């Protein structure tokens, strides 16, 4: 699906940008955020430079509470290491911070997300004879098991939102309510929020299913249904995602993604 342009009072922005800005808004100042590579790193960098300067980023290769000036392109990028409170190890971060229960938000992407918030980053097709072999869990399974809140940012395409994942790399609500508890997971009802360029969806702790809580400006529910392999519920208080502030847009364009690596330039400005 191609993303349309939307006019704000202050000029134009596109929904890829608003997706990053909206995802950043879900991080509160002071949250301990376990950050994965790619768009999660972009949105976390933006949050740190705007409303959440005291967010504590933890990165699986070892950095604990770095100050991120330039957006790191990898969890092993030196850009993720400067002025950290500590440069530790993977065991320290994934074990002593995450599994220990100290992470507020796990922030990741994923190739497929199904109706129960399960995530696949391992394989498209059959595991034994894959159509496409993907990287695998990395720290994502650990994050989905142990973070109290899970924030997922992906560009909205139908193939990314199947009814059921080809392979469950990282557990959401598995096959429904109570399944996480039966499996033995410690966090029983995580809040799973997906932010895309069309919509914000959040899992309902009772049913384990996604509900649409916000629509991007200019996007209607039919567009969401047409681009999603399952039919999400709709929150009684359905809102529109607030447009970006000048500060958000400027910070994103000039500081976080100055070279247009994550949001292609020239479409809208």
């Amino acid at each position, binding site marked *: 699906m191609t993303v349309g342009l939307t006019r704000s009072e202050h000029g134009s922005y596109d929904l890829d940008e608003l997706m990053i800005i909206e995802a950043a808004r879900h991080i509160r100042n002071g949250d301990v955020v376990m950050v994965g*590579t*790619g768009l999660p790193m972009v949105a976390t960098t933006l949050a740190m430079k705007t409303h959440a300067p005291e967010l504590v980023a933890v*990165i*699986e*290769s*070892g*950095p604990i509470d770095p*100050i991120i*000036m*330039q957006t790191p*392109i*990898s*969890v*092993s*990028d*030196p*850009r993720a*290491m*400067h*002025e950290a409170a500590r*440069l*530790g*190890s*993977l*065991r320290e971060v*994934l*074990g002593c911070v*995450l*599994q220990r229960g100290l992470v507020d938000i796990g922030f990741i992407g994923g190739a497929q997300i199904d109706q129960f918030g399960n995530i696949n980053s*391992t394989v498209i097709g059959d*595991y*034994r*004879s*894959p159509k*496409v*072999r993907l*990287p*695998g*869990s*990395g*720290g*994502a*399974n*650990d994050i989905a*098991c*142990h973070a109290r809140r899970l924030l997922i940012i992906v560009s909205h395409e139908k193939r990314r939102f199947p009814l059921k994942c080809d*392979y*469950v*790399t*990282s*557990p959401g609500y*598995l096959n429904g309510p109570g*399944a*996480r508890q*039966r*499996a*033995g*997971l*410690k966090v029983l009802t995580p809040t799973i929020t997906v932010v895309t360029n069309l919509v914000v969806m959040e899992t309902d702790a009772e049913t384990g299913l996604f509900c649409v809580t916000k629509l991007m400006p200019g996007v209607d529910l039919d567009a969401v249904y047409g681009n999603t392999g399952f039919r999400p519920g709709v929150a009684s208080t359905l809102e529109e995602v607030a447009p970006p502030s000048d500060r958000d847009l400027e910070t994103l364009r000039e500081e976080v993604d100055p070279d247009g*690596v994550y949001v292609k330039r020239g479409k809208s400005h």
Partner: protein
Amino acid sequence: MGLREAVGRFVFDGAVVGLGGQNIGRCAMATVHEIIRQGKRDLTLVGCNLSISMDLLVGADLVRRCEGGSGNLERFGSTFCWRRKVQSGEIEMEDFSHLGMVSRFLAGEMGLPFMPTKSLLGSDILVHKAPSTVKKYEIIENPWNPGEAVVLLPALNPDVSIIHVQKSDSMGNVIIGGFTTHEPEMVRASRNTIVTCEEIIESRQIRSDPERTTLPHIYISAVVHQPWGAHPTSTYRYYDFDAEHLRFYQECARAGGEQVKAYLDRFVFGSESFQDYLEKVGGKERLLQLEKAMKRLCASKGENP
């Protein structure tokens, strides 16, 4: 000991090899080149994130099996040789999460048979296993909390691990700068470890400030002074990753076949040593650019590079 002798002595056909580094940071590339030149085969590669060091060995047809948490080069894309051969069934991949893998090294380094974790539960990582894996995991009931499931993962003790670090003395007292990923656990679990380093420092420097030692010499089998030994990946405080060469490698790896062979012929088999390779990728001029890029990163934070 030189790298040729170290690899000849500690890496053998069929070995389980622990790979240090992660993604675009501190992969032990010089040692990987030497393993390829010596044609050590039927290797099982283990680590957390398996990156370009793994992909190059797979591209050289020296790998039978991988065990890890992920295979990729992040923004630079998949590890294409690995992806192609996992898809075709030519090599097998045993999947764990990163915490799962480091828990296995943790058991190994403490002389224990297994380690519990609360990750993986409910996921398909516990549903599927690689064909030659006998037993991947066990789920037990927590003896102190009846009814609670706990996953046990088997200890992993590599035959030999290869890491590239910032500093070591000639005995093998190692200082790792920046993130350490899974390396401390993996190295302490390994029967042998080959270290390449940017700088050899005096032992008295280690011993006057021993709390900075990441790994003491008792775990290290060979130390080789190999500046730029992680190229094209980065070494924190020394040089940034070489995006241009990474992209070039990725083009070859993605194309596969002749292009992978051509890459290996030109850069690995066609090089006597890693020094030759470094000349081919741009020599001093290029390397200084990468060094400057890292200095800029460090200086912008008021750090001492």
